[in-house]
């Protein structure tokens, strides 16, 4: 019986490996690895391009993650890019903590050219922390952006993410609602504002309860 299960399992595994999605998955993973490697070598533009190309071979949700990284690299000031690239490499190789720390250090260092850049790095770090299920750290980073980087392009994302966490945890609901209201008023055309309205509605319902 065990043998039969093993054979069946092996055949299934073989089938998966031979299947197109499996090929694709394998091919995608290799591309990501290659892209990260290029970043590790310091070739930031090529690495970014490679990330984008690798994303095309991945399922949509995973592709989004890669594209996020590529976009972050593109949006950052050239001076900040090496820091972000290093963080990507570290995170990909499993060292999310170190990646996050590196990003936070870069922000706290005096060489951040613009406040927006700092916020972008902090949000990037928060996302990395989320992928590693470091929710508290992620929340702390989002809070830092919400409170300290109101003018940055990353502020709306941080507000929404923080508010959703607070709603899920049912704490600081009023504060979350206030933040969302501010977001809706100050950035009414942001793509995340419609979602923010929904979350605000739920917050208000929760507050009402």
């Amino acid at each position: 019986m065990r043998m039969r299960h093993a054979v069946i399992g092996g055949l299934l595994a073989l089938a998966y490996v031979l299947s197109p999605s499996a090929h694709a998955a394998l091919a995608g993973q290799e591309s990501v690895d290659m892209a990260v490697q290029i970043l590790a070598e310091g070739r930031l533009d090529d690495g970014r391009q490679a990330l984008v190309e690798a994303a095309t071979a991945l399922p949509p949700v995973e592709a989004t993650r890669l594209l996020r990284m590529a976009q972050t690299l593109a949006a950052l000031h050239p001076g900040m890019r090496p820091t972000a690239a290093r963080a990507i490499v570290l995170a990909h190789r499993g060292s999310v903590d170190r990646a996050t720390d590196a990003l936070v250090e870069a922000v706290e260092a005096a060489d951040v050219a613009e406040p927006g850049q700092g916020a972008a790095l902090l949000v990037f770090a928060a996302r990395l922390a989320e992928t590693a299920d470091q929710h508290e750290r992620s929340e702390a980073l989002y809070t830092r952006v919400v409170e300290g980087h109101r003018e940055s392009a990353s502020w709306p994302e941080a507000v929404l993410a923080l508010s959703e966490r607070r709603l899920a945890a049912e704490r600081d609901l009023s504060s979350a609602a206030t933040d969302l209201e501010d977001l809706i008023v100050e950035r009414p055309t942001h793509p995340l504002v419609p979602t923010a309205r929904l979350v605000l509605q739920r917050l208000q319902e929760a507050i009402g309860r």
Partner: protein
Amino acid sequence: MSPAPRAVSRIVDTVRGYVNSRARLGLAAWVAAAVAVVLALAWILVGSEGWRAGTPLPLLLDLLIVLALVQAWRELASRRERWLAERLVSRSVERAAGLPRGTVLESLELERAVPKGTSAGLANLAVQQTAAGLTGSPSHLAGQSGRLAEGWARSGLKALAVTAPLTLLALGLAPERAAQAWAGLLRPVQLLAGEVLPPLEVMPGSVEVARGTPVEIDVVAVGREEVTLHWRAVGDVPRSRVGAVENEQARFPFPSVDVAMDYWAQAPDGAVSDVFTLAPADPLLVTDVQVSLTFPPHTGRTAEEYRGVVPRLAIPFGTRLRIVGRASRPLGSAGLEEAGGGTSARFDVSGPSFGGDWTPRRSALYEWTFLDARGERPGVVPAPLDVVLVPDAFPSLRVLYPARDTVIPITRRQPLVVDVRDDYGLDRLEVEAFRGDGPERTVQPLSLGGVPAAIARPLLDLSQWSLVPGDSVLYRVRLIDNSPAGQTTQSDVHILRVPTVSDLRRDAQAELEDAVRRLEELADRARQEAEGARPTDASNRAGDPMEFGDREQARTSLDRQREMSREVEELSAELERLAAAMQDGGLADQDLQKDLQELQELLNEMNSDDLVQQMQDLEESLSEEDARRAMEELRQMMENQEEFRQMLEESLERFRRAAVEQDFRATREEAEELARRERALAEALREQDNPELRNRQQAALEAEAETLQQRMERLQDNLGELGEQVAQRSAQEASTSTEQARQSMREASEAQSGEQAGERAEQAADQLQQAAEALEQAQDRMAEELTKQVQAALQQTAEGALALAERQAELRDQMRGATREEMADLRSDQAAVTEGARNMSRNLEEGLRFSPMDAPGVSELIDDAQAESERTAEALGRRGSNPSPAASADRTVHALNRLAMSAMNAADQVAQASAQQQAGGEQSQEQMDQLAEQQADLMNQSAQMMPMQLSQQAMAQQMQQMAQGQQAVASDLGEMSNDPGGEQSMADMEAMAQEAQAIAELLAGGRLDRETLERQERLFHRLLEAGRSLEREEDEESEERQSEAPGEFERGQISPLTDADLGRARFPLPSAAFLARLTPGERRLVLQYFERLNRPPGEIR
């Protein structure tokens, strides 16, 4: 012996006279008495009614009177004989005197003659004694005789005394009777014969009447009761007719007198009139009038002829009329006279014929004048001859193209299209081109061969003229007709301008500013339309029938929208024309061309297919009276209108920016050009070669600097309005520098020495250059800002897309395994994602608003992502949907990822393009355009330097600079020609490079003349054309093809035309008049009925 004195004779004569008088008295008395008796008898016999006709009494009484008179005379005669006998008288006298008998008698004898032997004295004594014895009155001496005479007289008087009173009594009693009676005595014979009637009068007597006319003969027959008219017509038997006399007149009508006839009247009383004649007369008739027209030769008209009725003659001046005709009788004269007096024409007359030639000199109504040989006028005259002389009109011409002052194409050949016409024929057309008072002047005749109309297409070829930018050529078209006078018409003088680059730039700016103004007006109207449309929207509720007022308002709204759409189209077409004109004029400004293209596309987008379709649908629904559909279409159209209005506002912003950017470019170029010229002038001032000329030139440049400064100030204002503070500050700096330059120029004019003037001028040139550089920097910064803005917009789009993608991924995870209710709850989250995509789209549009680039791929991907999100939302609401909500969510994530990639890619391209521009590594076509622009600058410089008449040294410096510029063009062309990847179209790159090199050498050698300028210009044209060739290859634009004979082809199947194709309804609608009589409700029902009848079979709505 003498007789004795007649004393006794005298006495005897006296006595005799006395007796005679008594006798006469008696006679008269007796006659009077007889007359009185007769009168009385007449009074008695006449009766109360007067004498009866035929009565003899008056005659008898008259006879009585006559008898009495005769008798009385006889009596008198006899009594006188007795009484007046000498013997008796002598005896009476003797007796009366008592003389012896015979005394008297003897005395008388003695008195007569003394007998012989008697003494005369004794005789005389005897007589005297006798005479002395005769004393007494004659009446006494008359004696017996006297007594008898006296007695007779006395008896007569007595008779009269008796009869006269009787007569007087009769007269007093009945005077009328007496008158009648005694009047009858005066005409006794008439009375005896009966009444005498007046003669017959016959009218009209002997006359000539027109043949065939009726005549009435009147016979006046006083006292008659009837009268007979007798007549005898020629060739007919005598006839008569009796006519009753009424009011003393009898009338005899004759209906028609065709032949001569004699006639007379006769009364029953035997009275007969004279014989009269009625003669028919023929009127003088003029027949066979023939008018032949011979037109002047230049009119080319063939002769015409009219017989009988001659219509109104509208004839050219100089037409000769030949007139001939005949009359019914010999004529005395024939002619034409102007009605109301004036000119006339006389024709030759021969018997009844007339004829002659006449060339009228005035337009008038000419009446025929004819007189026959007797001087009578005709009864019927031909209708007057209405002659209108049409003067030969001046020829007319209309220059159809270009029909206005314009810029001459770079080929220096301007096609003209001229519509020429004349009433008769054209001889030739002349195109005259000249330059003010310059020597160049030419006239080119073009024979038109006498045609009356043509479309002439001469080509004004000025390629051999030495024209440089800034020159103007005047031209006009002259047209001469083929009349002997050679009448001429001239067109207006038009100007062909050879534009300077500066002119072209300012023209482009002016056009853009005009477009801004028009768009502003359009935007105002769109705003008003949007505000005005709201009540309609509010008043129509779904399901209610559309009221007439609402329908009309909807139609008005539709019409206005159509109008606005068309104006936008027109504006787009004008931009296209502007781009072509700028290129034709030789303005190689890539930025301007890009701007114009982008603005055109923006305008074309405003009239989106959706809006056009909406308008069509609304039109259909209104015409079909489909109220519900109409309201729906109207609502949708209003939404599209809102979008239209927003795009209009955005376009307005873009246009304003484009106009300001063009102003920027033009101002900068002008500053640079001015700096160059000022620098050249500085050299000349240093040399002091022609102080007066230099002062004038300096003053002219200072004036241009002032204008430039004003432009800069205006530019500052415009930049401020656009919110470009940085650029505004730069413009201010430039304005300040220009002001300083002007000051320096003034100082240069006032400088004491040439060296000083040169320094100041050099300073001014530097300041102007600074101004140009400030503007350039500002422009660059503006461009940089714009690029950053675009990049930021794209990056934000990428960020937004990824954020939404992550959000969608979270939702997807929630969808897996969710219940139906949970799925339904997720719909609002999904809707938020869709709304987020819309926000992204709007943000991207806003971000690219002022950018010359657009990102159509990105916009489409946003739409795709939006669509996928909507499908996911639908899947969430449908049970058992395929694909499942989760799969649909995956696709949404995928779409958002693609969007993010595209946005990132676009941002990268923007950054690369910006870097490339800075690094100078353009594509071939762009390189070519840039070279063309450089060449245009060089050309401009040369054109500006030439008229400055600089000294050799000053010119040499300028020439060196220009030579270097030209050399740079040659080098770039050389490199491009060596490019191994070069295309076929670059085959003549080497030739152009060589040409550029040759020109550079000429400039370096100090040669700047018209020929050099023309060579520069030709090179510029070739560069421009080479750029266009590349563009054409890229755009696969088709060219004018050579005509080819048709090859093989296969015709497709063509369906028969339906009633709908033919615009026909199977069942025609009732007429408009019928429909107008119905109420609106009835009309709607009727139209709906017919609409249903005319629907194609099987169509269900």
